[in-house]
């Protein structure tokens, strides 16, 4: 019973960290319509920044600076936000696809730095000994898991409330206006690019914070944690929950993580150890198909925003014209 409770707390903590990433993505995509397929890169930036700032001094690499965990989290948000802002400034004046390609590139480069810049990131072996909040309780796993759950829940709740407030504020309304009808919003004197860069940067900061939380929860990070599969998982979470809705982002994350963890447990029971890598890839196939089916059948997910109104009359069938793209 106690084990189950402990596992429940562990599961929820991970799910809530995911939901934090999903909330960041929802600000970028759901609210503003910015397409980020490199979010694993921003999560990694947060995790590594916080790890560098808070770990004890290590002769083999730069830092660590042994700073308090809270400083690590703030630093993670700052660096993640700056990285996202630079990405946004480079691409947001161009077609929306260019942002997608660039974010994809950011994730590739972050992965490369994590793997190869040994002096900074510890290389393929990653960084260990990341201080954990309530690390003193590690002797009693249940208490440790519950206290971590409390911390992560608190952070998620704060971010959730802040985002809810933001999306109702004049700032959030401008973002929605830009998403729905860019021309009308611009004609009201709103700088599309400026607002979008802000939204993208805040979203990146939230993702980085999630990365930092995760790093301090597990105490160890390595480049393998931030593969494209992570980006993919979070996208499925957002689409299942319904893009545009913050509560949808949280519930979608918990739901998809439950499916993911559950099917993972199932495959480890059903398949022999040597077949498990193959079974795991089948798991990803299923989730990929699920994403496509949801996009086709129920593009608004469980809690999605009201359907976006069709713009500029009926769409042409084969190739949508330039009005869908940002110019």
């Amino acid at each position, binding site marked *: 019973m106690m084990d189950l409770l402990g596992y429940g707390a562990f599961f929820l903590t991970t799910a809530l960290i995911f939901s934090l990433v999903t909330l960041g993505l929802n600000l970028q995509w759901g609210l503003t319509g910015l397409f980020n397929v490199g979010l694993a890169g921003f999560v990694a930036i947060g995790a590594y920044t916080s790890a560098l700032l808070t770990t004890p001094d290590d002769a083999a690499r730069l830092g660590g600076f042994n700073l308090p965990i809270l400083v690590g989290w703030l630093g993670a948000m700052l660096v993640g936000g700056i990285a996202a802002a630079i990405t946004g400034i480079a691409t947001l004046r161009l077609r929306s*696809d*260019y942002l997608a390609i660039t974010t994809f590139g950011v994730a590739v480069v972050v992965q490369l730095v994590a793997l190869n810049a040994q002096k900074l990131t510890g290389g393929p072996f990653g960084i260990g000994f990341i201080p954990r909040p309530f690390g003193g309780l590690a002797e009693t796993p249940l208490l440790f898991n519950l206290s971590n759950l409390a911390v992560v829940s608190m952070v998620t709740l704060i971010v959730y409330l802040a985002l809810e407030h933001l999306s109702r504020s004049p700032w959030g309304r401008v973002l929605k206006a830009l998403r729905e009808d860019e021309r009308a919003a611009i004609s009201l004197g709103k700088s599309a690019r400026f607002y979008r860069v802000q939204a993208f940067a805040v979203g990146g900061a939230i993702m980085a914070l999630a990365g930092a939380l995760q790093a301090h929860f597990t105490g160890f990070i390595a480049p393998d944690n931030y593969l494209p599969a992570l980006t993919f998982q979070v996208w499925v979470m957002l689409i299942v929950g319904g893009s545009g809705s913050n509560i949808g982002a949280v519930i979608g994350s918990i739901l998809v993580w439950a499916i993911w963890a559950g099917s993972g447990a199932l495959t480890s029971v059903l398949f022999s150890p040597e077949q498990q890598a193959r079974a795991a890839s089948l798991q990803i196939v299923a989730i990929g198909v699920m994403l496509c089916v949801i996009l086709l059948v129920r593009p608004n997910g469980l809690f999605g925003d009201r359907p976006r109104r069709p713009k500029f009359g009926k769409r042409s069938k084969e*190739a949508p014209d330039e009005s869908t793209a940002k110019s």
Partner: protein
Amino acid sequence: MNLQFVVDGLLAGSMIGLGAIGVTLTYSILRFSNFAHGDFMAWGAYATLAAVGAIGAMFGKIAPIAPLSFGWPLIAAVVIGMAITGLLALLLDLMLFARLRAKGQAIIVVMASFGASMALRSLLEFIFTSRPTYFSRAIQIAMPVGFGIRITPDQIALLLLTAVLVLGVHLLMTRTQTGRSMQALSQNAALARIVGIDVAKVVRVTWIVGGALACVAGVMIGILIQIRPFMGFDMLLPMFAAAILGGIGSVPGAVLGGLIIGLAEAGAVQLIGAEWRAAVSFIILMTVLFVRPIGLFGVRER
């Protein structure tokens, strides 16, 4: 600096360029960046590998053609692989992309292609496992050709093949009615429809050409390096960078962009080290986006 990087760069550039042709055509005609294009490469390579196996089972062991590492079975298999990859692209369009395009949100199609990419790649991992395989394990002796450059017969054959294919696509685009329709659709979709261009046919040709070329690029990677499920995904960033550097919609631009990126990568491998290779395309991509976002041969979008 050793001039060997020229050969390495041209080869890498050929693979990138052949893939980038498909990316640039999809982007300019169907108006979305297809993240599943890299996985067409991997599927093409595995389809060709399977076809080689089938031919081997039917005709027994066949000796390779004199200096090359492969014989006619591989050549026949590539043709089969190109057909399969083209069909795969058509099927994916029919089931997924065409339906989403009809709804009219370009960026949703991009996201779907991202999901499809993940599913296609993992399906390969499931069928063939993630262990690398090879068309041939024979080792070829590289011939010195002066200036400190060495080249194998396979490499010469593949460079020639690339040149022929690029010329073929260029002729298709400029000298045939279908090619002109493709250009018309990419330049002004509404006007193209008004003058009665068969849009569905153009879309089909786009997918088949893109898929077939991706298959060839995948087989090239398979012959020169190795076949793995992730081989195409790793090519995605260089291909996008090449398509944007060359200018979206331009076939010669995509090839030139591919060659530039291939040469830059090979140069960087010599100067900095192989582990940073993947960063080269990102740096080139960012430079192009800041300095000249329409690329070398691009036209400003209307």
